[in-house]
């Protein structure tokens, strides 16, 4: 039924939406590689600013994707906590200097180097996440498979993505229906029962769901075969758009960012920008 979708395609009239799926995929990959490789704070800050501008242009609003952003924030926080718990002085090792701010308890000291390291980790994630979300929110799902195929992924694999997008809502609806009917037979999934009972109860929903999904798979694969899926090594795409001027500009821009990123990062033979030496 009509549920609030957590993350899906949001149709808005923006230049970002106007780019082809292929462009956005290439851009997303280049962007991710760039921000994952570098630990150069200057570059990361630049990318952050550019990312914010792109986000603005896309006309996607923060509240459209707030749920996922919240989740990402939680993971980022956990990530930082664990890094600190396991390696509280990793920054000292990395930046080959030690500026003690608080002596803390035992090995858990607070150093400027460690804080700087955490800042970089956080910046990296903040750079990637919005662009990743934009990629999903601005790309018509119909174009996913076609764009994957264009960058060389086998169309069978690409189509699997498409099919998932097509049938996941159906399966969700089926799940809701089955679980409602089973609840009416005393199967309780709310927190009141003991964990083991709940586990047992969830089987009462999953078994019929799996059975009906298997049936669906049979229908879908029959329907696809009857219409010639897998006949040729290649296939064409109804929704594929050819690359326009803006697409080439965007791809060029992504490549420039990546090249600058790599050049600056490896200029002095280290991935880390070190303000301490």
């Amino acid at each position, binding site marked *: 039924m009509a549920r609030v979708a957590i993350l899906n395609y949001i149709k808005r009239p923006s230049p970002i939406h106007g780019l082809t799926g292929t462009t956005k995929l290439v851009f997303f990959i280049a962007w991710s590689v760039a921000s994952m490789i570098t630990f150069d704070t200057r570059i990361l800050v630049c990318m952050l600013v550019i990312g914010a501008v792109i986000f603005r242009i896309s006309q996607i609003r923060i509240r459209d994707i707030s749920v996922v952003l919240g989740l990402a924030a939680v993971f980022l926080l956990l990530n930082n906590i664990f890094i600190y718990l396991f390696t509280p002085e990793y920054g000292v090792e990395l930046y080959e200097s030690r500026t003690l701010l608080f002596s803390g308890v035992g090995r858990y000291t607070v150093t400027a180097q460690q804080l700087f390291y955490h800042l970089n980790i956080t910046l990296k994630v903040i750079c990637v996440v919005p662009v990743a979300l934009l990629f999903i929110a601005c790309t018509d799902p119909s174009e996913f498979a076609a764009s994957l195929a264009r960058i060389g992924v086998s169309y069978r694999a690409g189509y699997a993505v498409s099919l998932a997008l097509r049938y996941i809502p159906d399966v969700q609806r089926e799940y809701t229906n089955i679980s409602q009917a089973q609840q009416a*037979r005393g199967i309780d999934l709310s927190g009141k029962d003991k964990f083991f009972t709940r586990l047992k109860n969830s089987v009462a929903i999953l078994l019929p769901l799996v059975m009906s999904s298997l049936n669906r798979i049979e229908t879908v694969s029959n329907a696809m075969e009857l219409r010639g899926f897998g006949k040729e090594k290649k296939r064409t795409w109804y929704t594929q758009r050819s690359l326009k001027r803006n697409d080439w500009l965007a791809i060029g821009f992504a490549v420039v960012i990546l090249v600058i990123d790599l050049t600056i990062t490896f200029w002095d033979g280290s991935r880390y920008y070190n303000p301490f030496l």
Partner: protein
Amino acid sequence: MAEPIISFRDYGFQYLAQASPTLYHIDLDIYSGEKVLIAGASGSGKSTIGSCINGLIPYAYPGESTGTLLVGGKDPAKASIFELSQIVGTVLQDTDGQFIGLTVGEDIAFALENDCVPQGEMQETVREVAKLVDIDHHLEYAPHELSGGQKQRVSLAGVMVEKVQALLFDEPLANLDPAAGRATIELIDRIQERTGAAVIIIEHRLEDVLWRRVDRIVLMDEGRIVADLPTKDFLVGRMLLEHGIREPLYLTALRYAGVPITKALEPQHVGSLRLSEENKEQVRTWFRKNENPEKAGNERPELLRVENLSFGYTPGVQNLKNVSFSVREGEMVSIVGKNGAGKSTLAKLICGFEKPVSGRICLSGRDISGDTIKERAKRIGYVMQNPNQMISKPLIWDEVEMALLAGNMSAEERKERVEETLKICGLYPFRKWPVSALSFGQKKRVTIAGILVQRPQMIILDEPTAGQDYHHYTEIMEFLKELNAQGFTIVMITHDMHLMLEYTPRAIVFCEGELLADTTAAHVLNDPGLVERANLKETSLYTLSMACGIENPQEFTERFIAYEEARRKAQEG
């Protein structure tokens, strides 16, 4: 005569996993431009014939075949399923499952994409074909925005892009409301006129298919062809009921009235009947003779009361608008209306799966709005359409006992209750059996037993007979009638007009979230305005009684139903 497109010669087939063959000695030729109906009960082998024609056998369902089969001059065992798909286009029964693309346009283009057709040409073809099936204004739509009938048209377009020589429809009417089903039959007819392709329809709902010209009817039973005759000749014979298929109602009515069914009568369509004055008089005499006894009104106390109920899944959209009605104890009621009219939503609100925006639901005079799903379930049972959506235990006993385990009943009490329920449902002899050994109809009984074990006062069933042939349909419905006679109140959501007419005295009609009518079933189908607004279909009995000059078609329908029931009882007794 030209070469047949499809030609079976002494053909037999046995599925790999099965002990005995499904098809025996099939001899069948289908020619270009022909429209052939393959009828038969479930398990008669009619769907297997379909799978042989489109190449799913042996490609997806391996097995052993004997004799010969040629499709477009090719042997399916040697040709690939892809070659066959360019000769025969198949529209499957499941309108949802076979919709592969994310939008209408993509889905229609699917076969062309696989053929590596260049994009420009592809878009051109898609537009052309979409226009042919009248879906060209919806090319951007996603599947969930379409009705069942529209999805089916998309599937049809999707196979027509291949310029196929034959179109195969596997139970095209199973998932559609009556009016959409009729539109499908009309569309198939139009498409055939335009393309000249052979059309093969596999369906057991004979009367609905006969809404438009059918050249030949092939009747299957137990893996054999028992009749292969031109439509007129076929209908003159009386072979239908013997083989588990329902005869068109108007023909049955004529037989009851003593009118001989001959070829000269043009029996293939109720509109084409050539009734003589004498025939009409026979029907009128039958009508006068079979007066129904006055029915005693139901004066039993009110069980369910729905007051001014409104609901919407998303704010601003009203899926139910200010609905009020009540159901008395011991009633059997149908809820009808087109797909998306709000019937299932109503059931969900009554069971507590969704919360109403406004309005009240009372059970035996008490407002149950505050009750949880579990509390309501003790008094109102809900049975889903497909038993496989509910069955979650391998053994019948466990499945039926499941609902009791959540309560605090002693093992002894539970045993007693389950045994009693199994007896009510006629499942007691099977109590130790695994569920998987049962037929579809028996599984349905198990799911109903799983609900009855909580002793609800009322049961709501969603499409209890969807996709079932006449035999299973009768089995399920007679069982429900028996339960009703034992005092259970039964509410059914259905598309099946026969079911409504035959089994439920009262019908509640929905249209776009509003309650359109609450009256007798016969009245609903004899009110042309109502029929049109709710996407229903008048019965052929209405047309027949008008043709015979009977002023009161509603009464004619009611007398026919009562007469049939009496006959059925006499045959059983």
